[in-house]
């Protein structure tokens, strides 16, 4: 009886022909429909999210933005002591401080991007459940706001770098340093792509969140953050090179510090990895974001 009343109403709905609807909500849409126009319309939101992240980071702290520096400085001191002085790992003749600092600053950008991106669905379920905006704004804002943080930390690296150059510590930068913007793009892409894949999977299966923090930490040791690639040989070297971050870190060191392993093939592998991760990440994210509220 209820059904019949619904059908009577439906006849009212079909009296008009096709009209100029500006929006149609359907169960399924094309995977490739990224709604870039929508994303562009919400660009202010992206900037406001970035601003929010940046401002709230040091709200009610005494040291304020100095915290951005403190983290890499302390880690560098620890690494210099543990790996440089106690374990006496090689740094290819580069001063310990710049060697570790370069690795840490690069790695922490990638790690932050992937960690933050991987929890967006769960962390923002309350917002996503109440209002629509292109969901991809969220991971993009994470990448951008972490880039600001990275920028600040990168200044720290530059300061140390210039100090050691003027001291004549044998640092010989070369033109490959100009690859830096491209490297930054690769790191952002990797963090974003992998993060989106993981975040999409975690909406239904939470197991991955536990693996991730651990996995990212482990992956750092499987990358040349604390040792140069040149000290490795054979299968271990290949294994480390499988980590897409390895070539990025090595290229960066080669350009800025004059020591390191640079091969176009290695960087090409990282680039390909990044493109695939971005592609898959966007597709999966786009599919999941449409109905994740039902399963999160």
């Amino acid at each position, binding site marked *: 009886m*209820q*059904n019949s*009343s*619904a*059908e009577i*109403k*439906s006849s*009212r*709905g079909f009296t*008009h022909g096709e*009209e*100029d*609807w*500006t*929006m*149609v*909500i*359907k*169960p*399924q849409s094309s995977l490739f429909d990224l709604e870039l126009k929508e994303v562009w*319309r*919400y660009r*202010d*939101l992206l*900037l*406001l*999210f970035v*601003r*929010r992240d940046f*401002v*709230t980071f040091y*709200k*009610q702290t005494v040291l304020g933005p100095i915290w951005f520096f403190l983290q890499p400085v302390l880690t560098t001191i620890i690494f210099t002591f543990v790996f440089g002085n106690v374990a006496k790992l090689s740094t290819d003749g580069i001063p310990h401080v710049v060697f570790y600092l370069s690795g840490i600053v690069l790695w922490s950008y990638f790690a932050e991007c992937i960690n933050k991106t991987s929890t967006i669905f769960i962390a923002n379920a*309350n*917002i*996503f*459940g*109440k*209002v*629509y*905006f292109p969901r991809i704004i969220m991971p993009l804002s994470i990448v951008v706001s972490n880039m600001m943080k990275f920028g600040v930390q990168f200044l720290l690296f530059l300061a140390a770098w210039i100090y050691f150059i003027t001291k004549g510590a044998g640092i010989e930068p070369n033109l490959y340093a100009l690859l830096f913007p491209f490297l930054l793009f690769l790191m952002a892409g990797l963090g974003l792509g992998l993060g989106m894949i993981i975040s999409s999977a975690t909406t*239904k*299966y939470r197991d991955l969140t536990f693996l991730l923090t651990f996995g990212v930490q482990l992956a750092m040791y499987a990358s040349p953050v604390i040792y140069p690639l040149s000290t490795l040989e054979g299968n271990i070297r290949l294994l480390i090179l499988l980590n897409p971050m390895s070539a990025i870190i090595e290229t960066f060191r080669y350009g800025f510090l004059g020591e390191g392993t640079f091969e176009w093939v290695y960087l090409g592998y990282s680039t390909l990895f990044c493109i695939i991760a971005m592609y898959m990440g966007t597709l999966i994210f786009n599919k999941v974001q*449409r*109905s994740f*509220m*039902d*399963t999160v």
Partner: protein
Amino acid sequence: MSDSSIKVENLSKQYRLGLVGTGTLTHDLNRWWHQVRGKEDPYLKIGETNDRATKGKSDYVWALKDINFEVKQGEVLGIIGKNGAGKSTLLKLLSRVTTPTTGEIKAKGRIASLLEVGTGFHPELTGRDNIYLNGAILGMTKAEIKSKFDEIVEFSGAARYIDTPVKRYSSGMRVRLAFAVAAYLEPEILIVDEVLAVGDAEFQKKAIGKMKEVSKGEGRTVLFVSHNMAAVQNLCTHGLLLMNGTVLNIGNTNEIVKQYLSINQKQLSTGYEEFEDEGKEAWVHSITLKNSQKETTSKLKFGEKFSVKLKVECNIDVSNLEPLIAIDTSNEIRVFTSSSGEQGMSYSVKKDSSVEVEAFFDNLVLVPGEYSLVLALRSGKTQQFDVIFNALKFEITEEAYIGVVPHNGSWGVIRVNPVWKF
């Protein structure tokens, strides 16, 4: 070309019940396997209508099933229904928070939804920052917010606190600020959930006024969900009644509200109701409504004297039992509450005995309409033995008892006879 603003066609939404966990993976794989072979999703064929009260056999349930309706531009559609009728699901689909299982929604223009006030408010940010952030989340551009910033602040009445972090705000102030942002949205279609249930009376009035202005003055389409029938009647031009995930009726607001209330409440009784013991120390056994002729009835004439007789039973000794009587309108507005204690009357009842009490209403003139009695038993001000909402429904008919002309509901709930003097 017609002036439709939203058209909903065969819209359905299926949910899986129970825990997402064991079995999810196998269902997902099965679904994927069907999809790969180009077959229909096997789980779409099953599922039951959404009736909360009965325990279903299937793990899948249709929160909405084959919904069809159309909203014209400038209409204010009130969506009503019991809890679990599918109102929120419908709003979620319309506001694109989640996608339908089958069917389509077509719309003209931007849809902005207000399923909650203050979505995305960050407690550490100042009021100013939150206005921008919240506005952008709701779909405004920075320039739009900037141009309306002063009006938003004025509407919220929080000008003094605008550079203070929102975490220092009172909850009421936070809501006012959030609603102010939403009020200055300029979408073609606005979707509002029961956000008006917050804030003080003055602010609610302001909010309803603003919504009326938006729909009437600016020709926007508004979809409004509420349990507050007075607000729905006040605001909406049309009503949509949902029940167990299907559209029961759509049309004139007053008729829809009336239909909803008649489903929702007990049918008019004969004027006599009995209640269960339920292990209370003192409880109302039965209640009788009597007209001026001492006949038991649920229909009273306009202006007729009536009385309410209670039979109270006690399982313990109670020395100062005070019955309370209240009357609610069908819109759930409390007309009055009266306790026998106010007249200095209290009753002493022995264990395992009963007492009959009758309250006479000689001067209460209720306007025609449906009402319900609320009863309670107390001892002093501290102890409450029993309370029964909706204990007995009765009707005041249009027929006048004593030669006075009844007026319709728009003059208020009761009629009073003041003494007019020069």
